[in-house]
């Protein structure tokens, strides 16, 4: 079942002026339910523009965005209700924190939805636990947290709205590997426990390979490829042409293969590589 359908969407910045620039050009694809989808592409390939259309922050110049089969712009006055159903975590979301405590900041979204106090408190606890923020963190000022914690607090702020689709634009940009893992694990937990669709935008092939089932590759304002993870990463040469390449571990397996080691080339995660290698060596340690 498709959750979000993007139909022939184009978007032009500053239309009608000398500075006119196409950010998206006839883009079509589907985001499936109960599935983590990755959108990958270069800086300037149009991915950030694209995600801002999912929740109606930007309106397509042409084409339609369907949520559960209904055009989200069917009734422009109710676009804010779409924003509760499609939660968008923008790039560097830690700069949007403003409340006195982390708890209050996470509660901002649910409060705008008009939920009851109890419901809000429960959702704040739940989303804080997804991203691994402790009870004592919740009482702190968001400005006293570390960079990684701030990021997690901001993501929890969106999760607390319990959106049916959680969209994250570069959630791991500028974080260390540990911080990255905590965030991706949190996203995974959210997806599993709520059954929501998740869309992750990134330019890191390794993150995509590890967490995403479906992948959409953007290049020069267009969809270059779309499909299951294996279908995408087996087209390594094309990906390199776009300038993206394959995950590091896949590259390593390929190099081994070229050196005459009999190993599969369709390995995209470290876990799979470990399995294949230990099989190769007869399970000997």
């Amino acid at each position, binding site marked *: 079942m498709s959750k979000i359908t993007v139909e022939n969407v184009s978007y032009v910045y*500053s239309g009608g002026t000398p500075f006119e620039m196409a950010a998206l050009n006839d883009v079509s694809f589907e985001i499936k339910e109960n599935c983590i989808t990755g959108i990958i592409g270069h800086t300037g390939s149009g991915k950030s523009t694209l995600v801002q259309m999912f929740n109606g922050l930007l309106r397509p110049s042409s084409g339609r965005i369907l949520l559960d089969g209904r055009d989200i712009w069917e009734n422009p006055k109710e676009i804010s209700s779409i924003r509760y159903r499609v939660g968008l975590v923008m790039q560097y979301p830690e700069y949007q*924190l*403003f409340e006195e405590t982390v708890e209050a900041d996470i509660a901002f979204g649910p409060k705008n939805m008009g939920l009851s106090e109890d419901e809000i408190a429960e959702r704040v606890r739940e989303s804080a636990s997804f991203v691994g923020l402790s009870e004592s963190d919740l009482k702190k000022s968001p400005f006293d947290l570390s960079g990684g914690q701030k990021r997690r607090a901001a993501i929890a702020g969106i999760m607390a709205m319990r959106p049916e689709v959680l969209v994250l634009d570069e959630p791991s940009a500028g974080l260390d590997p540990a911080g990255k893992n905590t965030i991706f694990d949190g996203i995974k937990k959210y997806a599993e426990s709520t059954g929501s669709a998740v869309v992750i935008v990134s330019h890191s092939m390794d993150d995509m390979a590890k967490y995403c089932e479906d992948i959409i590759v953007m290049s020069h304002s267009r969809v270059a490829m779309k499909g299951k993870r294996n279908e995408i990463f087996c087209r390594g040469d094309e990906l390199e042409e776009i300038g993206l390449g394959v995950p590091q571990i896949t590259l390593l397996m390929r190099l081994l293969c070229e050196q005459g080691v009999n190993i599969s080339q369709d390995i995209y995660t470290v876990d799979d590589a470990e399995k294949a290698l230990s099989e190769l060596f007869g399970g000997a340690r």
Partner: protein
Amino acid sequence: MKSVAFGQYYPSNSVMHRLDPRVKIVIGIFYIVASFLCKNVLSFALLTVSALVLILVSKIPVKIVLKSIKAIIFIMIFTAILNIFWTKGPEENLILHWNFINIYVDGIYNAVFIAVRIISMIIGTSIFLTYTTTPIELTDGLERLLYPLTFIKVPVHEFAMMMTIALRFIPTIIEETEKIMSAQKARGADFTNGSLSKRAKALIPVLIPLFVSAFRRAGELATAMTCRCYRGGNGRTRLKVLKTTYRDYLALFFIAVFGAAIVLLNIYAPGYTM
């Protein structure tokens, strides 16, 4: 929202763009003075022609110039109406009399003259100072022009640097504002509906992060400048040294001739005098 940024600089490579900013500032001031010297039909006609010549020479599309005039059209119409109804002339110039309303030919002349003066002034100054000069050039020129003030201990360099930094960060902060507003909208913030106090309150989630990041940016910039050994204006040399060429002297010559012509036309030409 981008239109708020007054970086109205219009990139091109006209003669006007290549003039020394100091010269452009001086000419700009001179042009305003000249527009106030105009007194009769002929001198105002010259002023109009000069404004048209400026547009042609600077190669700025008329459409863009008209946009800047649009902003002041209300003030213009307002002053014109005031002039038509409130100017009193000699009895023989009365052309309309109805109840307490008296309209004289003088009033109509005045209204037209003042409209022409305002339009020319806007066209002139915006062409000299905003369309053809980048804000950075402008502050550079200003710093050099005000240099003599350093002898009476005015921190001219510091003021110019502050202005440059402020101008540099306007687009950045506008972009930041848009980003934060989008982020809060994604969390259900509503900036357009509700009562005034409600909408003002809705801005808190935007203003706090904006201030925090402005201070953060300022701190980072200060560190970056210190790392590059910035220590104020003393003994500082420039990457781009402002140099006047024959073009600049020619421009100064033209504006002098223009000023003289207006004064002469005021003296000799006949007709209505303001």
